[in-house]
């Protein structure tokens, strides 16, 4: 039954996309309805998966991952059977769910519904193509998190580029063409180099007598049994790092992000910030950490921690300097992803679980921020803080949600951001206190720019741009339906994070053990060299 849910979850958006294209631009209402139904169906199956997910109990020793067998699907895709004597080397269509991916699957399916709802009235130009692209993007994103085969993972990872390129380029803001091309080329260049690293890992992790494997579970197992030579690990890590760091994005590779986020249509921004940035951090968690542990410790930790701290401070300061609200939120993403990476490369259980939780948190809170900013833009056709002020008087409901979201994003205790950020910083503090302290400065900066935003736009005397005869009304039911579920989860994670942390615990613990073991071996080179 579980396998069916997983397949249906991946196929429902595709069916919706096909339906949208079939219905065509003439039947806008039906197109929108079909898209909504498709995303709701995917959400239903995702919810079934999330609630029924159980950590596999029978797990082979030394194997950090093993997806819940209820949801595991495995079909041969490309059979590289070179010789008849050995078992065939095969790329599998291998899908599954484990503790690292289960919440991200839930997040993706959850964010898609508001993405469709927010496009409801704003997208009138070629709506069929728009919704078809949006829905195929959903399949690609869910696919990345469900993929348990390295090639399949990469295929979905790359495929996300195509719908987004068109979404930004066709339905974006004034500089959409430049933004779309820059986004595409940046991420493509990075990920092709990552592919070389991935190919290197696959071809290096051989097991005598066994065929090559592309399965992430099996690769992680082999990496634990016979780790790759440390020097080679460093090169492979650097290759993987480039593509994933562009996607996250880490500090010097972030320049595509503000542009793409600002120019994208609201739904595009929500998904870019909410899900696509997580593909980078998830890639580190899924590929770099288990397969190249020595390199993560040797060069990954100093490099990433430094870049993450620079990203936190630089992103926050940039956010502080913005007048465009959407740009402010975009730069805040650079800073928040810095926290994720800081926690991830603490390389201990607290840091990694904090990072994974922070991925979900950031998806919720930044997704919400982009949704709300999009709603303001729909009403006033401006996002400039200079032109807006005191909106709390005009739009009390929207302002209420904005305040809650900003507080969640800042990390107020009792809301979701707090749990994740604190865990990330705790993790890093145990390894490199200095980085954690600088990261904490970023929290203060974060509070500063978000509170400035609230104060200037929502409080004080009412200041609105001329909006003709249009009556500006507060949020309607459709907009409430888009926002409320996300806010509920923000509060839930903040108040009771235990189930969220519990599901990921076995995988995180196994990873942390492997990293600790590798660290021990690295510190005692004489013994490991003797083996």
């Amino acid at each position, binding site marked *: 039954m579980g396998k069916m849910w997983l397949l249906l979850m991946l196929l429902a958006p595709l069916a919706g996309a096909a339906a949208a294209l079939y219905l065509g631009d003439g039947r806008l209402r039906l197109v929108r309805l079909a898209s909504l139904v498709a995303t709701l169906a995917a959400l239903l199956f995702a919810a079934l998966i999330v609630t029924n997910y159980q950590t596999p109990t029978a797990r082979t020793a030394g194997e950090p991952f093993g997806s819940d067998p209820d949801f595991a699907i495995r079909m041969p895709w490309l059979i590289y059977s*070179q010789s008849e004597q050995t078992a065939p080397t095969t790329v599998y269509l291998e899908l599954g769910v484990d503790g690292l991916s289960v919440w991200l699957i839930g997040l993706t399916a959850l964010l898609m519904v508001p993405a469709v709802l927010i496009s409801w009235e704003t997208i009138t130009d070629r709506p069929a193509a728009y919704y078809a692209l949006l829905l195929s993007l959903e399949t690609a994103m869910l696919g990345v998190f469900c993929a348990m085969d390295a090639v399949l993972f990469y295929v979905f990872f790359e*495929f996300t580029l195509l719908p987004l390129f068109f979404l930004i380029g066709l339905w974006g803001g004034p500089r959409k063409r430049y933004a779309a091309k820059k986004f595409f*080329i940046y991420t*493509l260049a990075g990920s*092709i180099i990552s*592919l070389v690293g991935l*190919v290197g890992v696959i071809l290096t992790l051989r097991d005598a007598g066994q*065929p090559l494997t592309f399965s992430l579970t099996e690769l992680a197992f082999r990496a634990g049994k016979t780790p790759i030579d440390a020097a080679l690990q460093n090169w492979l890590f650097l290759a993987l790092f480039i593509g994933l760091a562009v996607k996250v994005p880490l500090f010097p590779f972030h320049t595509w992000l503000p542009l793409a986020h600002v120019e994208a249509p609201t739904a595009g921004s929500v998904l870019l910030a909410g899900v696509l940035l997580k593909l980078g951090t998830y890639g580190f968690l899924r590929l770099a950490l288990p397969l190249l542990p020595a390199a993560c410790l040797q060069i990954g930790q100093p490099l990433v921690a430094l870049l993450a701290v620079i990203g936190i401070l630089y992103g926050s300061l940039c956010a502080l300097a913005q007048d465009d609200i959407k740009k402010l939120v975009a730069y805040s993403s650079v800073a928040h992803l810095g926290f994720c990476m800081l926690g991830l490369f603490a390389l201990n259980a607290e840091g990694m679980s904090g990072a994974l939780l922070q991925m979900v948190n950031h998806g919720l809170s930044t997704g919400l921020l982009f949704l709300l900013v999009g709603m303001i833009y729909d009403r006033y056709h401006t996002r400039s803080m200079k032109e807006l002020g005191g909106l709390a008087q005009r739009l009390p409901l929207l302002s209420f949600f904005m305040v809650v979201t900003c507080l969640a994003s800042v990390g107020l205790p009792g809301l979701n951001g707090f749990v994740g950020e604190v865990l990330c910083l705790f993790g890093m503090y145990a390894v490199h206190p200095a980085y954690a302290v600088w990261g904490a400065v970023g929290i203060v900066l974060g509070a500063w720019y978000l509170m400035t935003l609230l104060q200037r736009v929502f409080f004080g005397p009412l200041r609105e741009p001329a909006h003709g005869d249009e009556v500006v009304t507060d949020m309607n039911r459709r907009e409430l339906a888009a926002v409320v579920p996300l806010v509920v989860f923000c509060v839930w994670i903040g108040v009771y994070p235990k189930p969220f942390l519990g599901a990921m615990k076995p995988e995180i613990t196994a990873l942390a053990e492997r990293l600790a073991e590798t660290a021990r071996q690295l510190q005692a080179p004489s013994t490991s060299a003797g083996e």
Partner: protein
Amino acid sequence: MEGVLSAISGAVGLVGSEAVLILAACGLFLGAPFKVPGVRWRLAALAALGLAWYLLPAGTEAATSYAGAFKSDAGSTFFRSISVMVGLFMLLVSWGRFDERIQAEQLASVLLIIAGLGLTAAANDLIVLFLALELVSIPTYVLLYLPEKGNKADAPRRAEAAMKYFMLSVFSAAMFLYGASFLYGSVGSTNLEVIRAALREGADRSGTAVLLVALITLVAGLSFRLTAAPFHFYAPDVYEGAPPLTVTLLSVAAKLAGVAALDQLVLNGVLLSGLSAPPYVTKAAGLFWVLAVASMLVGNVLGLWQNNLRRLLAYSGIAHAGYMVIGLGAGGAADAAITGPSALFFYVPIYTLMTFGLFAAITLLDSPERRVETVDDLAGLGKSHPVVAFLMAVFLFSLIGLPPTAGFFAKLNIFMAAWDSEQSLYRVLALVMAVLAAVGAWYYLRIIAVMYLRDAVKPLTVRLPLLGLLVLWICALSLLWFFLRPSALWRESVDASRQGPPPAVGRQR
């Protein structure tokens, strides 16, 4: 007398489809002066190609002996099937687009080129190989000069393209002959199998240095057809000036001929079995390394500045020649699951589908009233011709190597073969390829961006012919299909690259 006759009939039996094509071409040439409705010539060509397809040996047939002038094995069948397929596509795309008065000659030239391609793959003798390559070249000169509908005014440009191609082609043929003479000189036979056997036993008279000279000159001569840098100079000029339909054929036919001939000489071990001693095998791999890097660099970087669509695609072809050369040089270790030759054979049909499709689409969009010459001429295609724009996007994404198109697996296999090569230098090559492919992605993306993200000042109004559109659909759907189900094609590629008496490049030590 009887012996000669049976030898001829045996040889013709091996290359029956090519014999049919050549006979049909002769018929077309002879009948051309007579006033016959054009559609009959086209139907005759179609019948010839259909018969040729029917006469191709089935893939499962065992390899014949390698004693005669021709051979028939999985490798040659692989190439011959692709070339007949290209011939069929070409006929359908050109349906009614050649000038009525001279189309018999033009169709005959197309048939001869296809026959030449097949013979290149089926040749088992240096002289036959040379003649087959010329059988591809000479009709190409004719096609390059003859006008097509709508470009009659371009006579000076056509003449320039034809002359340029002629001069350089003759030069490359001379290089090939020069190298072949070394090979003949060191063994004393022109039969490829005899040469291979003699070299493997070390029975050559002159030592390996001569073989190295032979390798370099032969590869140089064939690189011209492959448009591998630094032998690429003609390609952008010829593609720009030549008649569009001819370029469509040339873009894949020349490359197929080059790969098939290199397969005969290099991959089947003719040259390399003589060069298997350690310093030489490294030098041979080094030669391909340099060729690959130069081609990828020239193709991907210089393409960025091109504005003419066909010029741009010429550079794309140069870059892809570089990727294919990696497959030539990267013979995998004995236990490798993905060897260079298999990856190359996998690449060839995918490349043919995507490049032919793209050139055909541009050709079909071109009309005398509204030329499609520069990238900007495609502006607004996404709105005016959504279907064609979609198909072109499939070809372009496949050329970039993005899923969900077969171009992704083609590139992935080359990456894996390069990484798994015995030559550690090829790991660097994988990285170089990744970086340069990302650079080149920019110009493909530019075309997509122009098609979809810009509006035309003067939208295209041409209606695409049904048969041409059919070819585009076949190409695009095949690319998507081979992404979803690549295993069968991979198995074919492995069989094809393995055939011919072993060992192939990397497997000998």
